[in-house]
C-alpha cells in the first residue's frame, strides 16, 4: 500500500516555468521583461506550423543531419511540429532574441544546450512510433497499450500526432520540476525504460 501511494505521488511533480531555465524575463536580450513573449504572443502569431501555439519566435530554416543507426527501425524525417519550434532556439543558429518579428538577433545558445544542426548524435525525433514500429523493432513497448507513467498510454501522454517529439520527454514549461525539464524523473532510467524494453 505504501508503494502504491509513493507510486501515485511520484507521478505528479510540482514545478513552474517561473525561475526555470525557460524563464527569460530577466535576460538582458529580452527588454520586454515578459516571460512568455519569447515564444508566444496573444495576437498576430505565426501559423506556418500547424498547431503551433500562438507562435512568436522566428522558426528555424535549417536542414538538419538526422540520426541513423543499423538498429533503428523508425523513419526519422526533418524535425517537424513542436520539435521544430524547440530547434528554433536549440539549433544554435537561430538567434534566441529573434522573436516578435525581430530577425537581427545576436544571442545564440551555446554549450551543452546547443543541440545544433547535427542531430545524428541525438535521440531521433519526429518519427512515427506506433504498434507496427514496436513489433518491427522488438525492443520497444507498444505505445497504444503500454503505460506512460503519466496516467495513460505512451501514445496518449507522450506522442504528438503519433510521433515521438522533443516534447515526448521534455516539458518546456517545467510542469514536473525535473532536471533537464524532463516530464518524468529519470531516476533508475525510468523515462528511457518507459519506451525501451531493455
Amino acid at each position, binding site marked *: 500500500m505504501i508503494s*502504491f501511494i509513493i507510486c501515485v505521488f511520484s507521478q505528479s511533480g510540482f514545478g513552474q516555468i517561473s525561475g526555470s531555465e525557460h524563464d527569460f524575463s530577466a535576460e538582458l536580450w529580452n527588454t520586454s521583461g515578459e516571460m512568455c513573449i519569447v515564444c508566444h504572443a496573444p495576437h498576430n502569431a505565426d501559423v506556418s506550423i500547424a498547431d503551433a501555439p500562438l507562435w512568436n519566435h522566428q522558426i528555424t530554416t535549417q536542414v538538419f543531419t538526422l540520426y541513423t543507426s543499423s538498429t533503428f527501425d523508425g523513419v526519422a524525417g526533418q524535425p517537424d511540429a513542436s520539435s521544430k519550434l524547440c530547434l528554433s532556439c536549440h539549433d544554435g543558429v537561430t538567434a534566441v532574441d529573434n522573436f516578435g518579428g525581430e530577425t537581427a538577433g545576436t544571442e545564440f545558445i551555446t554549450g551543452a544546450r546547443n*543541440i545544433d544542426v547535427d542531430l545524428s*548524435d541525438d535521440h531521433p525525433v519526429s518519427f512515427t512510433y506506433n504498434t507496427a514500429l514496436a513489433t518491427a523493432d522488438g525492443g520497444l513497448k507498444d505505445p497504444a497499450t503500454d503505460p506512460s507513467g503519466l496516467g495513460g498510454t505512451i501514445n496518449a501522454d507522450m506522442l504528438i500526432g503519433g510521433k515521438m517529439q522533443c516534447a515526448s520527454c521534455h516539458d518546456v514549461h517545467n510542469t514536473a520540476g525535473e532536471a533537464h525539464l524532463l516530464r518524468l524523473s*529519470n531516476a*533508475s532510467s525510468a523515462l528511457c525504460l518507459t519506451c525501451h*524494453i*531493455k
Partner: protein
Amino acid sequence: MQKKIIQIFLFLWFPYLVNSQSIVNTVHNLSAGSTGSIKATTETEICIFCHTPHGSAPVGPLWNRDDPGLTYTLYNSSTIDALPGQPDGSSILCLSCHDGTIALGNIYSEIADISMLSGVTTMPVGKSNLSQLLNDDHPISFVYNSSLVLTDGKLKDPASITLPVELENEKVQCTSCHDPHNNTYSKFLVTSSQYSALCLSCHERPNWINSSHKNSDATWTTTNPWTHTDYTTVSENACENCHRPHSAGSSELIMKYPVGEDNCLDCHNGNVALSTKNIETHLSKYSAHNVSDIAYEGIHDANEAALVSVQHVECADCHNPHAARQNTQIAPNVKGANEGVKGIDQSGNPVDPISYEYELCYRCHADSPNKPASATSRSIVQNNVRLEFDINNPSHHAVTGVGENNSVPSLISPLTVSSIIYCTDCHASDGSGPLPDDPPLGPHGSIYPTILKYNYETTDGTPYLATNFELCYTCHSEASILSDNTFGEHYVHIVVEATSCNVCHDPHGISISQGNTTNNTHLINFDISAVSLAAGQRIFVDEGINTGYCLLRCHTRGHSEAMSRY
C-alpha cells in the same frame, strides 16, 4: 477490498514484473540500485553508463563513452581463413569497458567520472576484463560472407544465420553472440549455449552430428571439468568441452588448456569418459604413443601436412574430436574413433579424410623422415610400412588387402585366407578385458614393446611357453602350427630349439622392390642377430605348397639344402 488493492498494485507494477529479464536485474546495471556488486555510489540512471539522449559520441547508438583508441592483439591461428581487423562496430563499444582501460564511470556526457562503490574505477581483473590481448578470445570484427564460407569449408552460409544471432554489416561482432541488455541465457548470450547451439549457428563440422562428443551423456565422477558452464554432460557442453570463447588456455584454437592433450585427458582419465576410454592410464606404459612426451610439445599444428615431417604424436594426429565416435567396422575401413582425420594412401598420396585405418598409420610409419626404425634387424631392411604392406609383395599380413598365401590352415575361425585385419589388431594397448571396449582399441600404450596388444617374445632362445606368442596365437592356432602341417619343422624350431616366430618371419611383409616369390613367401625375412650367412647365403627357397629348404647358418648350425628340405 483487499483483492482490489492487490489488483491495483499488480497493474502499477506490471511493467516491472514482465521485465524480470531486463537489464535492470543484470550486472550491466551499474546504477546505485543494482543488485550487482559493481555499481555507482549515488547515480541512479542505468542507461547513462553507455547511452545519452543528446551529444553522443559518434561511434555507436547514442553512445556515451569514449573509443579506447587502442591497438589490440588479435586472434590468429594456422587454420583461420577470416581476417579479423582491429575491433570496430559495436565491439569497440563493449571494449570501452571490457578492455579494462577506461573507468566504468567515465562517460561522455559528464565532466567528472561517476563515482563507483568500493573505489572501483576500471573493470576489475577477472573474466569480464578481456584486456588488450584478444588473441585468447573468439575473433571479432571480421567479414563473414559467402566467400569466407567457400575458403573455410567449415562454416555455415551466413544467409542461413537467423535471429537472434546476427551479423553487423556482414561482420561478426561481440553482439553476434551477446545482447548486453538481456541476460536470460547467462553471460548475456543471445541464445542458449546448451549443446553449443550458439556456436553451431555459424560453425559446421562434418560428421559432428554423429560424433560422441555431440551425443554422449557421460558426466563426471570425481572432478567437474566444466566449471565454466552450467552443464553436466558431454553433449550439453559440446564445443565447450574443449574450447573457451574467451580467455582461453591457448591462444591458438581457443582451447581450454594450453597443452593439447590436457584438453582430452581432462575427461579421458577415468573422470568422465568410460573406464574403457581412459587413455591417460596407457600413456606411461613401456611402449606408447606418448602424447605427453615433452619433446613433442609445440610441434603439432592443426594445419600440418598429412605426411608428418618432424616426429611427434598428439591426440589430434589420430583423432578428430569433431567426428570421433564408436561404431562397428570391418577392416580395413576406418573405425569411428579415427573418422575425419588425414592420412597417406597406399600410393603415398595425402588423403583427407582417410578411408582405411592403415592410411592413418602411414602418416608417420611410411614415407615420413625420421620414422621409427624396425624393432628387428633383418636380411632385407625396410622401415616403410606402406611398402611392407603392398598387395603386390611376395608376402604380407592381410592389412591393405587379402594375403598371398591361399593355404593357411592355422587360421582360427572366423578368420580365413580372405580376411583382412587392422594394424590395431596387433598394435593396441594391452589388456585382457572383453573386446571390443576394454582396453581402448587403439595403440595408446602397452606393457609390450612396439605397442603390441599381446605378448610377442622376440628374444631367440627363450624357453617355449605358449604365452610367449600370445599375439600370434590370437589368430593362428598353436596346435595347428605345432602339428607341422605346413612347415614340417615348426615344432622342432619353436618348442625344441626355442626359436621365436620373429626370427624367420617378418610380420609386416617384404616389399616387392626388395623381395621375390622364391625367397620371401610366408613372410620369410630373417633376423640377422640369430641367422647369419652360410657360404655367402641366408635364404629360404620356396618349392611349392608346404615344401622348400633354407641356406643359412642359425647361430652355429648351418642349414644345407639336403638337411633342411621339408
